[in-house]
C-alpha cells in the first residue's frame, strides 16, 4: 500500500500543497509526491518535512494540460504501486482527478474536508449547507482535499528528489495567453478575506475595502450583483455561482447574506458582518456583528487593525 500526492509546484510550495502532503501522511502509508515544472530541487526536498519519502518531478511538462498531467500521475502511480492518490481540490485537480478515476477505475471523492475513516470520507454537500460521508467501494482511491481543511504539519526531514519521465505525451490544448493579476492573493487560498456588496453604493467606494485588506494582508471579494454590474472583477464574486471559499476570517460589509451568497462562504471559520440593517439575514450566520454604516465602520476598523499590527 502506498500513497501518491500530486502537487502543483510552479509558484513554489503553496500552503495547499503542504496540506495535501500532510493529508497523505495521515493516511498511514508511504508517501511519494509527484509534480512537474521547474521548481528547485532544494525546495521540493522540503516536502520531506511534511511526510514525503520521495519527490518525483517531470521537467518536460508544465502544469497546464490536464491530459498530460493525468498521464504523468498515472505513470508515477504505476511505478510506486499507489493505492491512494491525493490532490488539493484546485483547478488542476478538478480537471485531472476525474480522468484518472476513469483510467484507474478508482473511486473519487472530491472536496474532502477530513481524514477518511476506513473507506469513508467526509465532504461538503448542498453548497456547504450539509456534510456527506462518501464510501469508496473498490481498493483504489482518489481523494482531493479542500484547501484550508487541515493544517500542514512539519516534523520530518528533507527527502530525495528524483527526475522522471512521466510519458506525458503531447499537449492537446494550446495555451495562447495567460492573464494573471500581479501580486494579488488568489481568493481560494486566502486565509483572510474582506468582502463587500451592493451596500457600498458604487465602485468608487472600494478604496476603504482595499485599504482594510492591505492592512490585514487579506484578499478582496464581493457579492454577485457587484460583479454583474461591473463594479468589481468577476473573479472576486463569491457564492453559489461564484467561488466557494473557506478562509479563517471573512469580513462582509454591505452584503445582505442571501442564501446563495452564504453557500460560498459558510465554510469560513469566523464571519464578521457589518450592515446598517439589524434584520439582515447575514447576522444569523455571523460570529461577530456590527450594526452600522460601512462608510464609518470600515475606516475605523482599519485604524484599529493598524494599531494592533503596530503593537505586535
Amino acid at each position: 500500500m502506498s500513497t501518491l500526492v500530486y502537487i502543483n509546484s510552479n509558484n513554489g510550495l503553496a500552503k495547499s500543497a503542504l496540506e495535501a502532503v500532510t493529508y497523505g501522511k495521515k493516511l498511514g502509508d508511504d508517501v511519494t509526491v509527484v509534480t512537474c515544472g521547474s521548481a528547485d530541487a532544494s525546495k521540493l526536498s522540503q516536502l520531506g518535512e511534511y511526510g514525503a519519502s520521495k519527490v518525483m518531478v517531470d521537467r518536460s511538462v508544465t502544469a497546464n494540460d490536464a491530459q498530460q498531467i493525468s498521464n504523468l500521475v498515472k505513470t508515477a502511480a504505476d511505478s510506486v504501486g499507489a493505492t491512494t492518490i491525493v490532490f488539493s481540490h484546485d483547478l488542476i485537480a478538478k480537471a485531472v482527478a476525474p480522468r484518472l478515476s476513469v483510467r484507474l477505475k478508482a473511486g473519487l471523492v472530491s472536496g474532502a474536508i477530513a481524514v477518511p475513516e476506513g473507506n469513508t470520507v467526509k465532504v461538503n454537500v448542498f453548497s456547504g449547507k450539509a456534510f456527506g460521508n462518501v464510501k469508496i467501494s473498490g481498493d483504489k482511491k482518489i481523494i482531493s482535499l479542500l484547501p484550508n481543511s487541515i493544517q500542514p504539519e512539519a516534523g520530518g526531514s528533507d527527502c530525495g528528489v528524483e527526475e522522471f519521465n512521466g510519458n506525458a505525451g503531447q499537449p492537446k490544448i494550446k495555451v495562447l495567453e495567460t492573464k494573471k493579476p500581479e501580486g494579488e492573493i488568489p481568493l481560494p487560498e486566502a486565509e483572510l478575506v474582506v468582502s463587500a456588496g451592493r451596500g457600498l453604493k458604487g465602485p468608487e467606494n472600494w478604496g476603504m475595502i482595499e485599504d482594510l485588506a492591505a492592512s490585514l494582508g487579506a484578499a478582496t471579494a464581493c457579492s454577485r450583483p457587484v460583479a454583474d454590474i461591473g463594479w468589481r472583477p468577476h473573479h472576486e464574486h463569491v457564492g453559489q455561482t461564484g467561488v466557494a471559499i473557506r478562509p479563517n476570517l471573512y469580513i462582509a460589509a454591505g452584503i445582505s447574506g442571501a442564501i446563495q451568497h452564504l453557500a460560498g462562504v459558510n465554510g469560513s471559520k469566523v464571519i464578521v458582518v457589518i450592515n446598517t440593517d439589524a434584520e439582515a439575514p447575514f447576522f444569523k450566520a455571523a460570529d461577530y456583528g456590527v450594526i452600522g454604516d460601512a462608510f464609518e465602520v470600515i475606516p475605523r476598523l482599519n485604524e484599529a487593525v493598524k494599531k494592533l499590527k503596530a503593537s505586535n
Partner: protein
Amino acid sequence: MKILVCISKSPDTTSKIAFTDGNAKFDENGVQYIVNPYDEWYALVRGLELKEANGGSVSIITVGRAADDAVIRKALAIGADEAIRIDADPTDAYFVAMQISEYAKSNGFDLVLTGKETINYNGSQVAGMIAEGMDLPFISLASKLDINGTTATLETEIVGGVQVVEAELPIVVSCAKGMAEQRIPNMRGIMAARTKPLNVIPAAEVDTLTSFESYSLPDAKSECKMIDPENMDELVELLHNEAKVI
C-alpha cells in the same frame, strides 16, 4: 455542428436541506427541482448561441428517472432541439459519466458541454470523466467559448487568473460564469417543448465506485456577538485574542 449539453437537476437554491432514514437520504419532501443553474445558464445557453451562429443542433442528455421529465422540458423550452434521458438513478459520478460517454461516442458530437458542478453534490467530476471515457481533450471551468471552423478558443480559470487556450474539436467543456447570460423561456418555447422529442433509452451495464452513506448538518452557529460600531478596537481585540484569526 452537433452539440450535446449534459443537464442535471438540483434542488431549488432556497430549498430546506434535511435528511431522512436515519440521515441516510436527502429528504425530498416539498423540494422543488430546477435545472442545475450552471447547466442551464451557461452550458445550455452557450450551446444554443453557437448553434444559432454556426448551424447544427443542440441535444440535451440527462441520467435520471421519469420524475425528471419536468426539468428536461424546461431545458427544451429554453431552446434545445431534442432530449435524451438515460433511464437510471444517477448513483455516482462515474456511473453517470460512463452512461453519457457511451451514448456520446456512438452519436458523433463535436462538442459536449456540462455545467461547472451540480449545486447539490458539488463534485465537479462528471465532465472530466466523460472526457476520459471518450478520450477527448477536456477544458474545465471555461468562462468563454468561441468556435471557428473546427477550432475552439476558450478562456478558462487557472489558479489566480485566466488562460486563453485553443483546441481542435471534438472536445468536452465544463462551463462556468461568464459563458453566457441566462435566458428566460417564453410562451412559444414552453409550448414547443411539449412536442419536442424526449428519447428514453435504457442504461448500460456500469459499476458505481462511490456511494453516500450518511449526511449530517453543521452545528448551529453560536449566537452572533454584537459589537458597538464606535468600538472597533474591541472587535480587533476579539479577532486577535478570542477567535485568534488575526
